[in-house]
């Protein structure tokens, strides 16, 4: 074995060690998040119920909120009054998992720091893998999975850094990442190696990387949608005079308002949809070069198409009276389900031209 091959083997080994280490750190982050939620449950905020009860009792004076424009350079700056659209609930966002408690917040911050660390380690693992094979680190499902979770966490941390209200995703995200990495390192593991000639193309960089980004970000959107459905359920229960269970109250209470969650997932999905369109088109161009036809209804192509149409249906639903809200949310979940099936299902259960991806 020559020297270069030995170096590569070392790198591949380093990559594996890094991935395992990141799993350990993610596990710590997971427990820190749990602690955050537990400590947070001790706060008794009760904002949602209060807001909703007052709403139905007194006929809403809460509709007008003042958005104070910051800055003292100009005295007497005009204040902008915002009004929610009629017919929407006007509920403030929950305080987050920490519930405004000091200890909860501390654990939450620890969890995020650990997530940052785990992300760095995992990203190192992905890069080492790429170096060991001297190509894009997404030639098989194992590599696809580790890159996928790295990107999902990266997107989440980026949103946090941009001061978006996304801390509520933390626990679910870390849990999913652990699941994803667990499956990747056990059942999907493939030794680091070169690719068959059909994959030697710069389209591998373009098409597959955007596919991974789309999946990872669609995933964040799907989490938002799912929580929206729960939270919406909870809010309407309170609004109609019901009392949700204690556990449900404790958890739902701390999430953002249903409307915020809905807006969050819409923005995410709408932002990624053009990229997903691009991914499919890039794939078609590549297929044109590799297989002599740009569209041939190969199972992978079919499911990408189905996913695309399902997201288009979701975007339409949002613009159609009688379909926005919960119905549109179900469509969004179905669409993400299609994406997941395209990834796991088609690779594992269906054979097609894409099946060299190497499970």
């Amino acid at each position, binding site marked *: *074995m020559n020297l270069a091959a030995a170096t590569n083997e070392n790198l591949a080994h380093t990559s594996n060690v890094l991935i395992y280490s990141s799993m350990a750190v993610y596990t710590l982050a997971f427990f820190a998040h749990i602690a955050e939620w537990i400590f947070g449950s001790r706060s008794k905020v009760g904002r949602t119920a209060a807001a909703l009860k007052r709403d139905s009792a007194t006929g*809403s004076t809460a*509709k*007008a909120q003042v*958005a104070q*424009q910051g800055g003292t350079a*100009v005295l*007497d*700056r*005009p*204040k*902008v*009054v*915002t*009004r929610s*659209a*009629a*017919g*929407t609930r006007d509920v403030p966002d929950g305080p987050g998992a920490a519930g405004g408690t000091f200890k909860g917040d501390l654990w939450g911050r620890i969890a995020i720091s650990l997530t940052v660390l785990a992300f760095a380690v995992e990203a190192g693992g992905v890069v080492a893998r790429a170096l060991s094979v001297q190509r894009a680190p997404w030639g098989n499902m194992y590599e696809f999975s580790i890159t996928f979770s790295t990107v999902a966490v990266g997107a989440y941390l980026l949103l946090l850094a941009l001061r978006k209200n996304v801390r509520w995703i933390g626990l679910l995200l870390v849990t999913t990442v652990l699941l994803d990495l667990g499956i990747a390192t056990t059942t999907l593991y493939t*030794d680091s*190696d*070169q690719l*068959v*000639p*059909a994959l*030697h*193309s710069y*389209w591998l960089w373009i098409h597959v990387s955007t596919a991974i980004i789309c999946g990872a970000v669609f995933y964040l959107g799907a989490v938002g949608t799912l929580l929206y459905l729960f939270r919406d359920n909870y809010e309407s229960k309170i609004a109609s005079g019901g009392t949700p269970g204690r556990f449900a109250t404790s958890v739902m209470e701390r999430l953002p308002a249903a409307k915020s969650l809905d807006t969050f997932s819409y923005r995410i999905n709408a*932002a990624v*949809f*053009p990229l997903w*369109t691009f991914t499919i*088109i890039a794939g*078609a161009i*590549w297929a044109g*070069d*590799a*297989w*002599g*036809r*740009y569209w*041939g*209804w190969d199972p992978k192509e*079919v499911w990408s*198409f189905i996913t695309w149409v*399902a997201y*288009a*249906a979701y*975007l*339409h639903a*949002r*613009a*159609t*009276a*009688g*379909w*926005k809200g919960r119905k549109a949310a179900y469509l969004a979940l179905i669409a993400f389900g299609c994406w997941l099936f395209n990834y796991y299902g*088609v690779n594992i259960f*269906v054979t*097609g031209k894409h099946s060299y991806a190497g499970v």
Partner: protein
Amino acid sequence: MSNLNTTDERDLGKAGEQLSTAPREESASSVPAMGVIGWTRWFWRQLTSMRVALILLFLLSLGAIPGSLIPQNSVDELKVQTFKDAHTTVSPVYEKLQFFDVYSSVWFSAIYILLFISLIGCIVPRTGQFVGQLRGRPPGAPRKLTRLPAYTTWRTEAEPEQVREAALALLRKRRFRSHEAGDAVAAEKGYLREAGNLLFHIALIVMLVAFACGQLFKSEGGKLIVEGDGFSNTLTQYDNFKSGSLFDNDDLTPFSFDLDDFKGTYERNGPQRGTPRTYEAHVTYSEGADGKPRKKVVEVNKPLVVDGTKVYLNAHGYAPVISVKDGDGKEVYRNAVPLLPQDNNVTSTGAIKVMDGYRDADGKKTQLGFQAFFVPTFAGEGSGTMFSQFPALDYPVLALNGYYGSLGVDSGLPQNVYQLDPSKMTEFKDSNGDQLKQRLRPGETMKLPDGAGSVTFEGVEEWASFQISRQPASGWALTGAVAAIAGLAGSLFIQRRRVWVRAVRGADGVTVVEMAGLGRSESAKLPEELADLAVALHTVAPTAPDPEPEPPSEEPAEGAEK
């Protein structure tokens, strides 16, 4: 959008109208007027409504599913046959439902044709409406600006006309389309959203039409070429050929190419030993009937492109060079015979057919046939079975057994060149009376019994097979795709919004400025933008000292009456 479909819409009057060109939803229960025209109109309205478009989209994705789970004729007919043999009960049902041809089935076509009729029926009026909106001016300010999603007000000592003029200049500078209407300035921005949305939907139509043209006019064929041989693009030269229903033979691009060399390398170590690493076909091609010869390397992802026709590298294999001498020792046959690979290590089989020119020991004319079995890397003696251990030419061995008699090629039935039909032939026997079989290394010769001549394994050439295809209108499909992405980005990332600035003299002689904004959806950006504008306008019209401090934000009356 939401704020347009609710009670607000009535409050806002014209101001909230036409912020998009989406068709208005009518309730499904609205019963049509009697008569054919009434029904037709009703049907057309339903078909072009957002709700039906949504349902059709959903059906389209649902309908695409079976085609990904059940083998398709268009992809692999052999697989379909295997499936039919294995599932004799469901297959007839599937056949009836066209599940083996989902993407050309009646029902799938019906869904997408309806969807595209709906799409056209939607785009045409929307485009007209949008052009109307571009020609017209943003609607004037609603009576009560306080009802809008973002609102601000202040009192200033500047004259109302002065404020309006400043507002007009400011809004124009920020690229709002604006004009003065009565006591207020009306402005609107973000028309690219609508334009992008229309562009996207039109691009979808372009893509579909391009795809359909591609299917109708396409041609596609395969050709196997041994190193040193060539191909010129006429129908007769193809090994197999398929074309769309509107294809014409004259559509074939005139060009030709020779395969100079084929190079394949394979992984030598590790668990993926034997996996192909590079495939390169070195060709010399010339365009037109007698163009200048040029060189090119064709790889799996890098086809040779000649005037819209693409030549793809498909597969490769080995072609042992065989020479045959007759009873007189005269060479009657010399050819590189392509054999078909049977596994990943290129264990190959095929047939060698000596049609004419051969005479046996007695000088009688007959034909010869050999079954050939070839491995590029032989495992070694003694194992009995002969399977290749590696795809490269490390230790090639050719095994032959022979027949004489009639090859049956004149029977009129098409013959598979890779298979021998020994029904009218007699086996060569060795001295023990067993079938004559021999393993040969390159350069070795197998003697035929009783002075019937000899067969020599001279060496090995490689062959490559190519797919030569032409799919017109791919350029259009690509243009449509790019336009679709651009349109989508415009449609999803741009907000369309309106701003009004009203300035009137109040009862006490001080000017009251009111500003309000309305977007298609509630967005945090809208109040921010309004605040920015207000701040900018504020430099021209600063706040007047307040006689009695009453901040406008505590004006509860407007929101409370529900």
